């Protein structure tokens, strides 16, 4: 039964996506309840499967009954369970947020929006479940195609942003596929567990080394790590408001998940000494991403671009945590990944709510926002505390474990990068909050008589901001869970 619930995680939103155009042409108002219920059921089956995975160990689901390594398998272990639950929770909040208000901006493309979003969620769940390298590629591409289409959905400047995103994303996917080809040529298998078992025989093969470089290059483009982040700010600042929270919180995180999975469960970077120190090199990349991203965020004037660059710097932070090379840092990195999914969604909710209420997106137009939108401002302050890393929030504990891990590994570059990125994050949030309270800036033009954003927006912002605090309060338990059931084999 647990096995089938693993299949449901993937199939529920997929079938809902296929049914959506038919349903939409019949009763358009049923689209959102349908999407919400399918993602809700997906979350329930993810919780059910997580319970099984945590109590009885990893679940393998052979699709069509063909046993691995020949057949396709879905693997549901501790790491997947964390990601799958976070994925369904955040996407539920995003669908609820978009709700009745935002798809109206897409004039008549509501049905298309729900179809694409459900396909995207299903494909992202597929990436977290995939047990072999090639299916990971296919799910990635399905998710990416939906993301390109969603970015361009509203037309306007989003079209060109979507086109650039598509070009870079396809290059990344081609690099990844090329790396998979090299891996296959070296070992003759694509199944992750089987690959790890055969790796010691070909450890010094140049084909594995080349494949590894291409795979991480491809994933770095998909995850927007710093030299390859060019597509992200444009795509996120011109995409429709209902789309950005979902993309920002999930797509880059899932790429980071794939990176982690390949690093530790396919290449066994924790135990096998490589001639090329991949953990160290990726950690350097992450450190530069954390600092450069936060610095670029500080220089932005547009709210959404600032948040987008903040997301880039957080991708770097997560990479630092994962690549530090001990369990403490790894647990911190994974915990921060879950936190960041929630924080990014909340930040773009806030930007969308401000845009919806007063058509303001420039920092200089946020004067006296506190009086006009108290709920939104409160959510913004909670998220800002977590992005900077102030104690009761989840962000603090993630950074705390990452710094502890880096100190344990005597990796002072990582510590310095985390601390300086924290200071820069503080600086750019001070810029926003100073504008919100002070009267230095011009007030946003009031276009509606209602004092706040619509109820759906407030509720989903409130839930996500509260869950940031909940993640902080239960951080001990969650990090303990990661250490018990999601830590990679062999990592000390």
């Amino acid at each position, binding site marked *: 039964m647990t096995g089938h619930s693993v299949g449901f995680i993937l199939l529920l939103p997929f079938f809902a996506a296929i049914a959506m155009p038919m349903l939409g042409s019949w009763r358009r108002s049923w689209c959102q309840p349908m999407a919400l219920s399918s993602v809700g059921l997906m979350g329930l089956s993810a919780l059910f499967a997580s319970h099984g995975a945590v109590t009885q160990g990893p679940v393998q689901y052979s699709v069509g009954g063909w046993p691995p390594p020949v057949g396709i398998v879905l693997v549901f272990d501790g790491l997947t369970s964390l990601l799958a639950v976070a994925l369904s929770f955040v996407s539920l909040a995003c669908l609820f947020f978009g709700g009745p208000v935002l798809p109206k901006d897409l004039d008549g493309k509501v049905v298309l929006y729900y179809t694409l979003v459900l396909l995207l969620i299903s494909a992202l769940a597929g990436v977290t479940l995939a047990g072999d390298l090639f299916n990971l590629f296919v799910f990635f591409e399905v998710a990416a195609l939906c993301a390109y289409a969603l970015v*361009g959905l509203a037309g306007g400047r989003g*079209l*060109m942003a979507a*086109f650039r995103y598509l070009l870079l994303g*396809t290059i990344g996917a081609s690099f990844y*596929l090329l790396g998979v*080809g090299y891996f296959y040529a070296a070992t003759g298998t694509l199944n992750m567990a089987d690959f790890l078992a055969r790796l010691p025989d070909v450890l010094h093969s140049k084909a594995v080394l080349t494949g590894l470089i291409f795979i991480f290059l491809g994933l770095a483009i998909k995850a927007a790590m710093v030299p390859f982040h060019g597509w992200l700010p444009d795509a996120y600042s011109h995409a429709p408001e209902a789309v950005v929270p979902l993309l920002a919180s999930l797509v880059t995180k899932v790429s980071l998940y794939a990176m982690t999975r390949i690093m530790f469960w396919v290449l066994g970077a924790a135990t096998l000494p490589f001639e090329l120190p991949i953990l160290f090199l990726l950690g350097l990349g992450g450190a530069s991403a954390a600092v450069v991203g936060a610095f670029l965020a500080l220089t932005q004037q547009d709210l959404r671009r600032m948040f987008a660059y903040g997301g880039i710097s957080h991708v770097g932070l997560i990479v630092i945590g994962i690549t530090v090379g001990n369990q403490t840092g790894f647990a911190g990195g994974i915990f921060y990944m879950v936190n960041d999914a929630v924080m990014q969604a909340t930040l773009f909710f806030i930007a969308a709510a401000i845009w919806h209420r007063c058509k303001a997106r420039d920092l200089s137009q946020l004067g006296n926002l506190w009086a006009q939108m108290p709920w939104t401002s409160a959510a913004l302050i909670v998220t800002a505390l977590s992005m900077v890393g102030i104690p009761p929030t989840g962000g603090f504990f993630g950074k705390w474990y990452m710094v502890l891990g880096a100190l344990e590994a005597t990796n002072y570059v990582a510590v310095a990068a985390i601390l300086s990125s924290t200071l820069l994050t503080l600086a750019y949030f001070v810029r926003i909050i100073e504008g919100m309270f002070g009267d230095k800036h011009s007030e946003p033009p009031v276009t509606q008589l209602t004092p706040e954003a619509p109820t759906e927006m407030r509720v989903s912002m409130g839930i996500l901001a509260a869950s940031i605090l909940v993640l902080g309060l239960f951080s001990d338990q969650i990090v303990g869970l990661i250490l018990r059931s999601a830590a990679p084999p062999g990592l000390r």
Partner: protein
Amino acid sequence: MFENLLSRPNFTAFIILFIFGLTIMVTHHNLIKKLIGMYLVQTSVFFFLVNTGAKSGSTVPILLSAGGSIEPSIYANPLPHALVLTAIVVAVSTLGVSLGLTIAIYRRYGSLEEEEIIERLE
């Protein structure tokens, strides 16, 4: 180094196609030409993948006779072919989405040249 490349003509062809495609994507400013470059990159990767399954003196991977023992050495490896079939489907859908975006861009800005579009963005 050079002899190495000459003794592996298929691999050399893959490298040339791949770099050629990347160069087109970076240097040309016409959106359709960029897409042509992108498709060339994808195709070169498929070519590489198919090559990993090739063996000299082998035949198509279809069983010649039912029953009896199967001799794997006379068949080409079918798995890369299956992978490439799937990857081609992915590439075709990517091309479809990208052409759709190109049409939308042309309708809105009346041009396919990147510089002209950027001028008209404001």
